[in-house]
């Protein structure tokens, strides 16, 4: 650990600290228990402070913090640790046939404290978020004829604290969080005793995060949390779960030995029948009056329990099964990826770049067919190599457990700035302003209007980079499938996408007669060049706008100014180095500005979080989730056409639909996981939950009428059950 600032350094401080601990842990509770009648007596009604534990229901419960001092922007964790008496157990999120899942609620009110005055600052909703409870893998406890999923001995339930929007104002004013933890847990042997406890304490906030004394426990606990099951594809057939392509025992796993269904799945808790059939594993659930036909639609199905290899003693590991089963067969996914790539040619992101290709092709049309073939193949190779690099990056991230989605490049400001620079340069070059120095000349040619194969290669690379923000309609399910599938499948999918993108030009190779249709070069080419240059300029401006949503508008404007300075540097030799230096300085200044994305908030939307969704659904309200990002053109178009329309808004409000916006402009793990649960890896995604019903996915390109008809058809009553 890099920073291990230790609180206690001198002997005197150590003694004082120890005395304080003794007082806190022994003397005070003793006094409290002795003078019990003067306090509100029933166990759980007394509110405890941070260091205090409670002994009730044959268990000891306490609250632990990963960091003693929080730093805004740095994630932390809060844990509820329970130590259970021998023979007693407490429950998992699905308790099984009986029992109850623990409740662990955390609430915060921010408090800014100035030494002179007492200022109270409210933490606005969304600035500090507590993720849902993380449960370690439980064990199955059988008490025939019933079964439960529970923990014996010791267990810690954790919740992550995240700062989704770091605001510098909050950081300075906030000195501590007033935290209230309300916990309820059930402890059973044969009989059951409920336990309840509230803790209230201050969680200090400072400039540097200070790890807590029990931080090691959080790290240990992280190992007990179930990982994600991504070993194979899977599907449901009635009450049977089929895991397809599970490696044999020589591989990573020894055996699938059990499956703990989630509470939402409605599956029977009874031990399922597990059998192996070639390279697939079948998990057959008992018939339960609740789910005789098949599981309820959910995005968390439960835990696949696997015996770890070379371990006959029975040590097992749990893996979370999430998401919609892959309904898309692999060849259909490839077809969709190819078609999506084809459609990308028409998308506004890609068109400016393609226009460059058109220029050079126009010239080539006059030359030999072999030249054309060379160029087209070079272009295709450029497209494919970029796709493969993307694939490698995604694979690397996947292997380390992080999830990225399609379009993740646009979430990084550095990438957006780089693209802005490229587009600006291309625009400038097309306008013919780029004719300085031999060094620049060669590079400029290579990028834009050169007639070498290298030019085509670079155009291909560029096309892919720029295509990422636009998810063409057919691409979304295909990309979601490909990115979640085994690595070879993922590369195949990306290749299909690349080939689709390059297809219009590949056609020229296959049908050279088409070339004859190409209009002869003339004055129109110059006009087209200017038009395309303007298109590139507009795209550059669009990138600056995206940057203003990733950073602040001021920072983005500064970057824009730096870009202009850069162009001036190229234009006027005399001021070149001066202008470049200023440009660099402006860039560095812009990067160091505080990064708020506090834009005008639209009252129509609430922020997305899985808790908000669960709460609204539990209240029987219809929920609509708009997964969007500022850099996603399709999303922005839909937003303007459908969601800003006054009539549609009124229509929505009449039906009392809870409208949630999942803004994926910046990287967000919760939204990425939520997208993944629908088998998607990018935006846009529109999900509608009718009250008491299953999720319905709307098409990627929406019109007000289409939106209304889709929601209306989902709202018409159908046979339902929880």
């Amino acid at each position, binding site marked *: 650990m890099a920073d291990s600032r230790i609180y206690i350094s001198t002997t005197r401080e150590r003694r004082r600290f120890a005395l304080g601990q003794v007082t806190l842990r022994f003397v005070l509770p003793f006094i409290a228990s002795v003078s019990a009648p003067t306090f509100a007596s029933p166990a759980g009604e007394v509110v405890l402070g941070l260091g205090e534990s409670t002994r009730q229901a044959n268990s000891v419960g306490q609250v632990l913090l990963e960091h003693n001092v929080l730093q805004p922007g740095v994630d932390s964790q809060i844990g509820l640790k329970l130590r259970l008496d021998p023979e007693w157990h407490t429950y998992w999120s699905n308790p099984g*046939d*009986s*029992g*109850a*899942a623990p*409740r662990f609620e955390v609430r915060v009110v921010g408090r800014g404290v100035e030494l002179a005055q007492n200022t109270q600052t409210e933490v606005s909703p969304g600035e500090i978020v507590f993720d849902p409870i993380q449960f370690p893998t439980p064990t199955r406890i059988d*008490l*025939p*004829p*019933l079964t*439960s999923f529970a923990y014996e001995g010791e267990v810690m339930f954790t919740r992550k604290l995240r700062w989704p929007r770091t605001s510098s104002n909050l950081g300075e004013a906030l000195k501590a969080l007033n935290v209230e933890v309300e916990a*309820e847990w*059930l402890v*059973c042997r*044969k*009989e*059951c*005793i*409920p336990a*309840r406890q509230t803790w209230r304490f201050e969680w200090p906030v400072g400039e540097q995060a200070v790890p807590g004394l029990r931080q090691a426990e959080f790290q240990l606990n992280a190992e007990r949390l179930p990982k994600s099951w991504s070993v194979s594809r899977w599907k449901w057939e009635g009450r049977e779960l089929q895991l397809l392509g599970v490696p044999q025992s020589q591989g990573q796993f020894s055996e699938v030995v059990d499956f703990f269904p989630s*509470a939402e799945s*409605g599956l029977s808790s009874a031990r399922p029948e597990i059998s192996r059939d070639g390279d697939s594993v079948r998990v057959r659930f008992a*018939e*339960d*009056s*609740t789910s*005789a036909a098949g599981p309820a639609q959910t995005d968390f199905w439960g835990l696949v329990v696997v015996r770890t290899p070379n371990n006959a003693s029975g040590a097992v590991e749990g893996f979370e099964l999430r998401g919609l089963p892959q309904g898309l067969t692999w060849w259909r996914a490839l077809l969709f990826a190819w078609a999506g790539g084809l459609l990308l040619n028409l998308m506004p992101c890609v068109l400016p770049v393609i226009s460059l290709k058109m220029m050079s092709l126009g010239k080539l049309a006059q030359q030999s067919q072999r030249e054309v073939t060379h160029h087209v193949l070079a272009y295709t190779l450029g497209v494919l190599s970029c796709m493969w690099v993307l694939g490698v990056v995604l694979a690397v991230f996947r292997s380390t457990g992080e999830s990225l989605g399609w379009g993740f490049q646009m979430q990084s400001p550095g990438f957006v700035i780089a693209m802005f620079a490229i587009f600006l340069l291309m625009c400038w070059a097309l306008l013919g302003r780029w004719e300085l120095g031999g060094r620049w000349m060669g590079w400029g040619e290579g990028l834009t209007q050169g007639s070498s194969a290298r030019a085509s290669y670079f155009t291909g690379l560029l096309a892919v980079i720029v295509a990422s923000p636009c998810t063409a309609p057919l691409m979304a399910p295909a990309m979601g499938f490909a990115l979640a599938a085994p690595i070879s499948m993922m590369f195949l999918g990306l290749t299909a996408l690349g080939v689709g993108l390059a297809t219009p030009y590949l056609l020229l190779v296959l049908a050279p007669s088409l070339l004859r249709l190409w209009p002869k070069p003339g004055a129109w080419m110059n006009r087209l060049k200017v038009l395309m240059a303007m298109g590139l300029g507009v795209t550059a401006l669009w990138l600056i706008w995206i940057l203003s949503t990733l950073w602040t508008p001021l920072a983005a404007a500064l970057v824009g100014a730096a870009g202009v300075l850069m162009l001036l540097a190229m234009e006027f030799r005399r001021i070149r180095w001066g202008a470049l230096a200023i440009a660099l300085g402006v860039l560095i200044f812009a990067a160091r500005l505080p990064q708020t994305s506090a834009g005008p908030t639209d009252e129509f939307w609430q922020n997305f979080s899985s808790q908000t969704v669960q709460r609204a659904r*539990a209240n029987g309200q219809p929920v609509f989730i708009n997964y969007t990002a500022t850099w996603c053109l399709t999303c922005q178009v839909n937003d303007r056409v459908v969601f800003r329309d006054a009539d549609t808004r009124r229509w929505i409000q009449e039906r009392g639909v809870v409208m949630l916006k999942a803004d994926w402009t910046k990287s967000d793990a919760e939204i990425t996981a939520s997208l993944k649960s629908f088998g998607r890896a990018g935006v846009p995604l529109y999900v509608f939950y009718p009250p*008491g019903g299953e999720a319905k996915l709307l098409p990627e390109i929406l019109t007000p009428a289409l939106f209304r008809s889709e929601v209306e058809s989902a709202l018409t009553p159908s046979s*339902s*059950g*929880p």
Partner: protein
Amino acid sequence: MQFTKETMNRLSRQVAKAGVVIALSAAFGSTALAQVKNGEAAPDFTLKSAAGADVKLSDYKGKTVVLEWFNNDCPYVKKHYDSGHMQKLQTQETAEGTVWLTIVSSAPGEQGHLEAAAAQKLVGERKAKMTAFLLDPKGEVGRRYAAKTTPHMYIIDSKGVLVYQGAIDSNSSSDPKTIAGATNYVTEALREVKAGQSVKTANTKPYGCSVKYK
């Protein structure tokens, strides 16, 4: 298949496991729970009530019947009884002609088990207003209906068809303060049955302590 030592070990382990299961099931009778699906005819049963009479489910054909699984020592049953909520529900529904049968399936020696005299006394102490308090010490009726928790609620309509099974309400906390804000599935289902409609929320996951079968 190669009869290696590993295979033999694995085989013998599995045979031993099977043997244990067979032995256990022989010793304890059928340990599995049967089940009744919504829309099926509710199986008939005869149980002795706390008052000593023989009560048959088919006696009540033509009336709506509520079955409530009960264990006096379970914190979740206490949540509804200590607060008076369950008694109020019973009074309300029996006044409208619904038959309310409370059943105890705890085996002798297990938590919640009651002999007839103690059961009678309890009904008085609790001021409970069920139509009959039935004792099922062998757990046969509980197993037949796959009753898993206390409380576990079932509603049978006047034609003898099971139309609801599951939790009493939507909040599984043991805190009685949560009863007011929770949706009571039983009240809603009874209302829909009375109006001749189909029950919208017909199947919920029951919460509570496990039924203490043998």
